[in-house]
């Protein structure tokens, strides 16, 4: 009789969880979704300007999603606005770092930019680490970690109440594993959020911009960048930003010449 009751309890908990999580999985705004679909239709008919206008309406309305940014980037790419395309691709990548489509399109768009930058080689462990923490989107990581922790807890409860020794043993080890994985995912999510927080980047939008040695027009010219080049933002100083290129060069750029990702 007791085991039957336990089963009932677990069933109840799962129902509760589903009730809570399922709306999260489908946080969808009907009107916004309709707009996005409208934009996609315009894109499919090669009406790129119209698609851009539609997507942009969503973006201006404060909506975001990897798909929205990605599609908007595509539309800009098709109209040959490479800097804008790159800006939205990068925004999309931030929301969905592991997406291969986004990677491929960023590479293709980068072919059309002027500046050739040899990326400073990354230490292989750093590279792996970034690939590891950026593999999944933040929300996916968050949901996975919640589910894992929950599953681990339930398995612990099972371990606590089961009568069979075999089940108890299996439940104990799997519970430990699940909770550990859950903690790992929480950690990864935290690292990813931190990574994007600290790795602020921008895209150069001016056709040609001279990078100065300090904030101010009077500073010495260091080098020249062209539109579409991605830079890391190191520092803000009024109207000026300290930036670093992927090849390691640093300098100051007027904040009006770039758009932050």
């Amino acid at each position: 009789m007791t085991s039957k009751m336990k089963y009932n309890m677990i069933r109840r908990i799962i129902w509760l969880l589903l009730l809570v999580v399922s709306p999260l999985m489908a946080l969808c705004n009907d009107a916004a979704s309709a707009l996005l679909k409208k934009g996609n239709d315009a894109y499919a008919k090669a009406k790129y300007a119209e698609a851009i206008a539609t997507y942009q309406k969503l973006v201006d309305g404060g909506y975001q999603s990897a798909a929205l940014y990605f599609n908007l980037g595509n539309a800009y790419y098709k109209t040959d606005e490479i800097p804008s395309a790159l800006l939205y691709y990068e925004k999309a990548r931030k929301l969905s770092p592991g997406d291969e489509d986004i990677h491929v399109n960023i590479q293709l768009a980068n072919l059309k930019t002027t500046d050739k930058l040899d990326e400073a080689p990354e230490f292989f462990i750093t590279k792996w680490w970034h690939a590891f923490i950026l593999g999944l989107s933040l929300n996916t990581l968050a949901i996975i970690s919640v589910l894992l922790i929950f599953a681990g807890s339930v398995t612990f409860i099972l371990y606590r109440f089961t009568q069979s020794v075999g089940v108890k043993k299996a439940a104990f080890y799997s519970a430990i594993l699940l909770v550990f994985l859950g903690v790992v995912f929480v950690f990864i999510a935290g690292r990813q959020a931190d990574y994007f927080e600290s790795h602020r980047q921008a895209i150069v939008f001016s056709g040609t911009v001279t990078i100065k040695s300090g904030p101010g027009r009077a500073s010495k010219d260091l080098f020249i960048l062209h539109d579409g080049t991605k830079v890391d933002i190191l520092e803000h100083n009024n109207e000026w930003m300290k930036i670093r290129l992927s090849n390691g060069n640093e300098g100051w750029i007027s904040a009006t010449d770039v758009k932050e990702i």
Partner: protein
Amino acid sequence: MKRRYCILLLLLLNTSLLFAADIKFTASVSKTEVSTTEQFEITFSVNGNGDRFTPPSFTGFLVASGPNVSTSMTVINGNASSSMEYSYELIAVKPGSYTIGPASIVVNGKQLTTKPIKINVVKGSGQPAQQGQQNAAQQNGMDSRVTMKRPGSDISKSLFIRAALDKSNVYLGEQITLTYKLYTRVALVGSEPDKLPDLNGFYSQDITPKNPNQQVQWTTETYKGVKYNVANMKQTILFPEHAGDVTIDPISMIFVVREADQSADDDDMIGQFFGSYNDVRYKIKSTPVTIHVKPLPQAGKPIGFGGAVGKFNISTSLDKNELKTNEPLNYKIRISGKGNLKLLKPITPSFPADFEKYDPKTIDTIAENENGQSGSRTYTYLLIPRHEGKFTIDPVKFSYFDPSTGRYVSLPTKAYPVKVNKGTSESNVTAYSGADKQDVKMLNKDIRYIKTEDVDVSKKGEGFYDSDLYYSLLAFGPLLFLGALVYGKWYEKNNSDIVKVKSRKAGRIAAKHLASAKAQLSANNSKLFYENVFRGLYGYLSDKLNIAAADLNREKIAAELKTRAIDERLINELLDTLDLCDMARYAPVSGISEQQVFDKAKNMINDIENEV
């Protein structure tokens, strides 16, 4: 010799002298400009018969001979006139300006004087001037009155080459005109070059004669008091390339000189006249000259000074101010003036770094003449802007050194704004080196298509991560587990005594049995109703009193209830009800309704529950 004949003639004709009415007494010299040690003649003449001639004092001159007196008489239409000349041969001693004072003579009791004569004495060679007349250039050059060289005399005095410089103390890079001049006083039959100077340490530029077909232009020139036939053999503009004293090597040439025959006597007019001569070859070398080259001053040297020395002007021009990307743009810099134009380093204007630029096209219009190099040099820069934007072509920094003032001069030029608009087909440009990016094949690939499946969008800042919900859900699992642990503890504590558990659950089970009885009651199934009430009560008591089902009977129940100090009346009532239910299973019951039985059973269970 001549004079002896003249004096003889004079003495012969001295007998009768006639007077002319108008008497003049004048002084004249063979030349007013003489070189030292040169002989010249001064003649005082009077057209009458004078006596008591007083010569002036020839201070500064040596009287070589004189006074030589000559008289002449002419009879024209019966009128006889006579004249007298007193002449002196003078030799100038020291250079300078001298005045020969007046001479005086008494004619017919009247004293006459001459005007003083000014003589300019220049320093000269010991050679007496043989000819001094300006002679226009002749077709074959030479002055026809050039004497034939006398054998044995020093050839270097009458034929030499002089390297003449317009200045010998110059700055580095300042232009100098070097002229090789041939000085000759002898007849030249031919010439051939022997050795030309190397001109090491100079950038040199020969001045080409204006009319190369024409033969040498001869002029006469007095050099060290001696007149020579002079020809410019070669003119070169030199630009010193390093500082210090630089010596120009001598030029060497071979000349063929027509020389009088050795056997002819000096004074033999006939021998000279009929010209028995020899042609002799002479090798003539010029004397080396030294130029003192000063380095350019370091003080005030402008940045970007490119070594221009002279006097220059700069002008710049741009063919358009607004254009589209990938269109050509021409920027011209024109430097004009006098100086080492050909040595100018290409000016490197600072164009916007983003412009594609090509090496400049240089056009020279430079002329060389005796005054040096002058003209202009134009640099044309082809620029191609590859990106749109507003640019500025910065002013060119051009500076030169002016040797006449010894200062650097920086010339300002204009800055040009250039507006570059976006061109039509930027992607067609192949100017970027293609190898540096990715495979060209990749260009044929298109971007991945848009995402059409996932149409969910969310407001910014509504991400699941970092939200309150996220943290509460994260905590939910562990809290659940904690709750389960607490529950488990409590559950175990309550269920450790089986008897207690059973008695605790008895009332609920009875209620369950009575609940099925109630269902039968409403279905009016009285038989099943009583049975259910009976079973409910028995089951309840069995559990509550911990009596095995086998031992369950009236007596046992009554005894057990009594031991638990249950009210006697309640026990009896319970037993009656049990009997009633037992009976009602077989025979219909009267006097009590089913509803009353049900309430009674329920109340009794409640009462027992309360008391036990």
